[in-house]
């Protein structure tokens, strides 16, 4: 299965990445693309920018391990994960997850699994600039909950497979 994993400072082009993943393939009946975007406000306060720090080496390895886990759990034909680091302005993309499969449920489940994983377990840390002050974004308990639910087959989704 083609798997592309990239950490980069530069913005990415989701359309070009999707084209690269699907070009010449007629077996990919379903492609799910998730784009995470820097919001312009947090709890009502305007955000000037996010700055993402990461653990080089570990981040790539951990993402690759979870792409492999996704591949073992669902019938995937291709996956792309691109995660930016450095300073990111509101409206700019932060993360892209593409999952291609023959059938929609596998593509949806794999993309959501990878995003839940990236939010709670991938070694990235967000710093937010609000009103001239920077602070570290606190991890959300709900993100831990979201990633924990993948430890067992989620009820209501595996049995709905096509």
């Amino acid at each position: 299965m083609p798997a592309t994993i990239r950490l980069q400072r530069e913005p990415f082009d989701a359309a070009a990445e999707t084209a690269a993943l699907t070009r010449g393939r007629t077996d990919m009946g379903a492609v799910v693309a998730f784009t995470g975007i820097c919001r312009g406000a947090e709890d009502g306060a305007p955000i000037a920018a996010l700055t993402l720090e990461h653990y080089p080496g570990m981040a790539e390895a951990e993402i690759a391990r979870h792409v492999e886990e996704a591949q073992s759990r669902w019938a995937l034909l291709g996956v792309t994960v691109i995660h930016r680091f450095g300073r990111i302005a509101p409206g700019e993309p932060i993360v892209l997850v593409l999952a291609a499969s023959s059938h929609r449920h596998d593509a949806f489940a794999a993309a959501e699994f990878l995003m839940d994983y990236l939010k709670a377990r991938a070694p990235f840390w967000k710093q937010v600039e609000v009103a001239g002050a920077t602070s570290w974004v606190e991890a959300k308990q709900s993100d831990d909950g979201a990633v924990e639910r993948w430890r067992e087959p989620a009820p209501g989704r595996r049995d709905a497979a096509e």
Partner: protein
Amino acid sequence: MKLLYFAWVRERIGKPQEDVELPAGISTVGDLMAWLAKRGDEYAHAFENPRVIRAAIDRTHVRPETAIGGAREIAFFPPMTGG
């Protein structure tokens, strides 16, 4: 042994990495955190609440009770906030 610090752990300690010689008697990640916390105010601040600190040995997540064994690189950081 190489130690790495990220995000506010890095900021509080004031450096992104360092090499340390561990004294005898430090067998787990938790032992290491307790020892580091006594190295000065900046370390005490970074590790003041060890339960919120996450650790990785050789780029794999580990728990405080994990044995350090032959680790080459141990990293300490806050809970992750990627995606």
